[in-house]
């Protein structure tokens, strides 16, 4: 259990609130590297000494898998859907992130823990999250309840969303303000870049809806945009170049350093291990470290 009074760097507790920064990886675009970026950034920060929690809110449970828990490992465990129903607390649901080092299923022998990182596992039931909120309007407050009762020392909540703007994403995004960040993580691809506009429209809608509401911040802001699979000298196709140029033109003010293309990035689902641990020296791992440094998460051990 974490102590109730913790000293956390005030930059992770804006406006002296009791909960950490919230980074929402969301865009209604499948395969746009939301889970890759959420897990890579969370793991990079954790390895540098910044505790955090990855919330896997997508029923495909990609980040849950990458952070060491497959369907079998989750049998009998509580998941994000229990949080949404208010049937469990964050500390009951969040599991220590880990990755596989052996063939068996022994949690001690066959898995190594990822220090400073926890994961709120998803489950197939999360596919019904929107419906659950539609059926019981009180459930709209589930995420707010978690934040208000939070007492830990995490620095960031990394939220991995499904590729949709439904009631569940709404119930979470309304709890963000301008100190937090909506981070669309998109591939350098014309389709992905084009869909960012839809996201900003959705964020405006959320803002409008919650304007004047006191208990809900209601100001989710696109503070950072992450472009992955960016062209390199050896991987350089015209569409990717044009998409990158378009992103620079439209979203230059919020663009984070690029995550360059590497075929390595495609291996993390097969190996069920986050990229910075799987291939720490591959180009995207290096770039994710640059991004985190850029965001102020320097290695605390240095």
């Amino acid at each position: 259990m974490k102590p109730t009074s913790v000293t956390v760097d005030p930059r992770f507790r804006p406006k002296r609130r009791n909960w950490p920064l919230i980074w929402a990886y969301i865009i209604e675009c499948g395969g746009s590297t939301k889970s890759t970026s959420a897990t890579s950034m969370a793991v990079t920060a954790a390895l540098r000494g910044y505790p955090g929690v990855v919330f896997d809110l997508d029923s495909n449970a990609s980040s849950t898998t990458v952070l060491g828990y497959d369907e079998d490992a989750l049998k009998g465990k509580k998941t994000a859907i229990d949080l949404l129903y208010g049937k469990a607390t964050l500390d009951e649901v969040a599991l220590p992130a880990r990755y596989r080092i052996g063939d068996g299923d022994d949690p001690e022998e066959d898995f190594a823990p990822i220090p400073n990182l926890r994961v709120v596992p998803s489950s197939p039931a999360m596919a019904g999250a929107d419906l659950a909120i539609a059926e019981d309007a009180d459930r709209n407050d589930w995420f707010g309840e978690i934040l208000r009762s939070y007492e830990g020392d995490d620095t960031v909540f990394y939220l991995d969303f499904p590729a949709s703007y439904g009631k569940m994403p709404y119930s979470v995004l309304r709890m963000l303000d301008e100190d937090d960040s909506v981070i669309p993580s998109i591939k350098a691809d014309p389709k992905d870049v084009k869909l960012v506009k839809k996201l900003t429209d959705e964020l405006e809608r959320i803002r409008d809806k919650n304007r004047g509401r006191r208990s809900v911040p209601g100001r989710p802001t696109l503070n950072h945009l992450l472009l992955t699979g960016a062209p390199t000298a050896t991987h350089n196709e015209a569409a990717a170049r044009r998409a990158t140029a378009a992103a620079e033109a439209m979203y230059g003010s919020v663009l984070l350093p690029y995550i360059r293309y590497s075929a390595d990035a495609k291996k993390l689902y097969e190996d069920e291990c986050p990229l910075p641990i799987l291939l720490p020296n591959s180009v995207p791992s290096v770039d994710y470290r640059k991004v985190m440094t850029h965001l102020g998460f320097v290695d605390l051990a240095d």
Partner: protein
Amino acid sequence: MAGALPRPKRKSTKSKPVVAPDEVLYTDTDRSGDTLDLELSSLCPNPFNKRAKRGVPELAATIKEVGLLQSIAHITADVWLKIYPETRDQITAPNVILFGEHRWLAYQELASQEAGWETIPSVLRDDKVEDARLITLIENLRRAQLSPLEEAEHYQALREAGLSYEQIAGKVGETANGAISKGTVWKRIKLLDLAPAVQQALRDGTLRVSAAEKAQQLDHDDQEDYLSLVRGGTHPAEAQAQILARQRQDEAPDTASPVSTGNGGAEPAADKPETVSTGNGAPAAPPAPRKPKQAKQPSGRDKDEADRRAAAVAREASCRALLEVTDVTDPANSDLILSVLTAAVLAPPQQSAAQQRAFTWLKETSRHGLDAADAATYFAAIQDSGDAAVQRLAAFAAALAAAELRTAARRQSWGSRERNHVRVLQEHADYEPQTEWEKAELGLVAAGETR
């Protein structure tokens, strides 16, 4: 940073992905629940279907007119033979019909007449192979008038498959019209022990089931006499009473008659051979009228007397049925056992006669567990055995016997003890009051209203 961490276990470094067989998409294209069009020749009948094939041409005509309203069901032979290897000789096609044999036969008939009937829609039900025997029975019970003997054969098959009377009654009762009690199942199975002539009469429909059941306590010769009496127009109950009366007459001098109260073993052989001892120590019951039957029309009293005896015989059979089907270790039966024991303890004791009778029943139902020469030795051995289940069964049997003996001996009108006893039999052994006399004793005026 990450250098200090242990190396992850990798899969992506292998040149070929490892794919488990169950991860391959659609290795089983036909799955249980799918409806397939099967060639008629690819199906063979269900070896468990004992129902006689009736009305196939009529069914064919109907199908030709309105089409097949309900698909049949099948199980692939491979799956079938894994569970029922003993039926290998009867499996002659790649698929076994689970139900719908009549429809399949009808299709064959249609196919022989015209084109277009070569395949029949059938639902694959490999998932039901474990229950195939039961499904066959239930399907038959539901669909058509199985004859009582066909029904008995099905029940017998289920018994052989390891189901208890109670389980059979429960499973079949769910689907059959109304509930079926374990007693009914037991009585049906017992039909298979009847003399061949009686079975044949049952099969022909010249003998009704209730009449056939009355023959069950008789030996095969007597059954045939009984059969001729009934065929000659005698009321079954009366025919039974006649034969029993004759039996008594034949055996009275030797005391050990099947309807003796059974205390003969415990005591020196009947000092009063004329008396059928009731063993309850009451003043010797008046002897049953032993006059050879001269009068064709029995007087009112004689008729009552015959009725009384017929009822006693029927009740005794019920008692035995109850003993045979009751699992004394099942807590669900605690109430039954307790009520019977209570009745026995509250009544004046007549232990040795009851034990003797109980011993006879237990031996007849092969539930005695221990071999012993006579009842006294048997009950002593049971006491020493330390086997709680056997002891409980023996106590239950003795208490039941005590109640039955008392009821059988009662000549005046019945009291609550007797009525209670019959109620237990009605409730748990599916006993139907047999004669007008007994119904009157029970206060059941209307003959049809026995429940």
